[in-house]
């Protein structure tokens, strides 16, 4: 379960002054459901998810993730969250197994439990062929599997994916989307961000459209279709976002 109340994040920028990357966002994600955060680049998706994963601290508002407040108990939140993004790389000088073990240990797993857990995950993700290969020698697909194993090792109740398929080839991207669905089927709370419409259409139970740090529309695909009188999600997105759209500033 994720409950977000009025969550805001402000940055100071030397040139542009105060930036409201996330501005009073509220929403709720239920266990066994996939919540999709849809937005253009710079809309505030990554900042929102980073706050939920307690990598960034909110400037205002609250969020409760898996029963723990992100400001009061960030360590407890992280212990219940699996966080995967294109920016979460692996340690190149460790082997696939060592990476997964490292994160298992940091999550407080005992050696015996860890060994069992690692064996199970490696079997399920079909990773035994490269378990002792260093991460810098792995293919993109193998790396992605290792990252998935890393987020799963402590069996978190909440999964946060920040543009997980960005820059991946179709086959690898499909591994990820299949994995996201599997997480939902296991009863986990899943939130993920993307700007790819087809992914949202295929995966999400609830869609939130975000622009300029504000959540502009929310609902299931059917609800959004009814509300905006469009079948195509892209048309809905444009209808929602266009009045608020400001092109993102050059290179930040």
């Amino acid at each position: 379960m994720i409950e977000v109340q009025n969550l805001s994040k402000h940055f100071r920028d030397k040139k542009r002054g105060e930036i409201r990357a996330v501005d009073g966002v509220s929403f709720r994600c239920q266990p066994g459901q996939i919540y999709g955060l849809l937005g253009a680049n710079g809309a505030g998706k990554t900042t929102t998810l980073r706050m939920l994963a307690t990598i960034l601290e909110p400037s205002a508002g609250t969020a409760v993730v898996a029963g723990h407040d992100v400001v009061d108990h960030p360590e407890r939140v992280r212990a219940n969250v699996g966080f995967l993004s294109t920016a979460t790389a692996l340690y190149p000088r460790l082997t696939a197994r060592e990476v997964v073990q490292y994160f298992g240990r940091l999550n407080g797993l005992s050696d015996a439990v860890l060994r069992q857990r690692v064996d199970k995950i490696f079997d399920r993700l079909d990773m035994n062929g490269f378990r002792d290969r260093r991460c810098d020698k792995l293919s993109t697909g193998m790396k992605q599997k290792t990252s998935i194993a890393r987020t799963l090792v402590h069996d978190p109740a909440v999964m946060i994916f920040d543009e997980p398929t960005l820059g991946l080839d179709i086959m690898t991207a499909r591994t990820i989307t299949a994995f996201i669905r599997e997480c939902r089927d296991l009863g986990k709370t899943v939130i993920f961000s993307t700007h790819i419409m087809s992914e949202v259409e295929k995966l999400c139970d609830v869609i939130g459209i975000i622009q300029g740090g504000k959540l502009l529309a929310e609902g299931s695909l059917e609800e959004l279709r009814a509300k905006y009188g469009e079948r195509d999600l892209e048309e809905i997105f444009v209808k929602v976002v266009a009045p608020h759209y400001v092109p993102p500033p050059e290179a930040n």
Partner: protein
Amino acid sequence: MSLRNVGIVYRKELTEALRDSRTLISSILIPLFLFPVLTVGIGYAFVEVADQASHEASRIMVLGGADSPDVVQKLKDAKNLRIVKPRADYVDLISNKKIRAAVDLPPGFQSDVEHGAHPDVKIYIFSGDLKSMLSATRIKEQLTEYRDSMVRDRLAAQHLPDSLMKPFGVEQQNVVSEDRVAGESYGGLITYLVILMCMTGAMYPAMDLTAGEKERGTMETILSSPIERTHLVLGKFLVVLTASLATATLSVLSMAGSFAVLAHYGKGQGIGDDFPILTMHAKTAFAIFIMALPVAVLFSAVLMTISLFAKTFKEAQSYLTPMTFLVIVPAIAAVIPGIELTAKLALVPILNVGLLCKELVTGTYHWEYIALIFGCTCVYAGIALFLAVKMFQRESVLFSS
């Protein structure tokens, strides 16, 4: 739970560091091989050069002296001098090192001497050029011998004893042990190298574990794990400190080893005679290690804090290069002969430890300074570590974009 996590991070970072060839080279190979090469290699080269210079006859010129055959003959007979034909451009020849010196005998030198007129002989040299100064010493030796024999002849002619001119003798004797002589000669250098090695060892891992982590994109991965940031930075810091101390320790060991080898094989080959050989006692090495400890903490924390601001390894390198100068300057200042510990200097970081270790190597233990310097270096180190932990909590530093 907390210490366990620091340990987990430490073990993982150490494993990674040991698998990185760049870290291995800078933290282990360089200190291991630098000192044998420096001491044995340069030591031998120095002895060789000095040896060559002492066996080679100096080319000199005698100006005038046609009417003073005795003194000219005396110079010609000297095995370590080679007389070349006089030329008017002797100043140029000396400047260009074609000849090492010129002896200027005034006209009528020999007859003036015999009649007690006290003429002056001039020696023209290239001051600062070792070989030129050596040739002047050789010329003076010959002239002094010539003068002494003249005095003896005159005394004998008057039936007077030799002791008339030399009523007493003067003898200079060293009363300090060979170790302390060596310590006084090399103490500064050793200290300088230890301080430098503490930094060299910490430098690479400090950049790799902070800016390198950002560059490889693993910073966000580790921040998404339940570990507290304080524990994460402490684990990383301990790895940097380990590298710093390992490098310093290996340097001291390999230095002690090099000196031991030099002492064993060098004796009787002229090394031990002209250049005192240092035997590092376990006690001295231990004392240096203890003093190096807070310095290593200081370096590790400062280098880590600075490189944390960089987004890439390269950027970190450009930040740390000026730091190197900040460390080298006080370390060199400590080596300058004549600068000695005072209460004020004892508060200057790095310089204080440099000066103190110089004393430790010579076997001097000023306990009040040892306590003061150890204490204040610990305070500086503590501040630096605190700063590193603080910076690791700042989002603008971790996600500088």
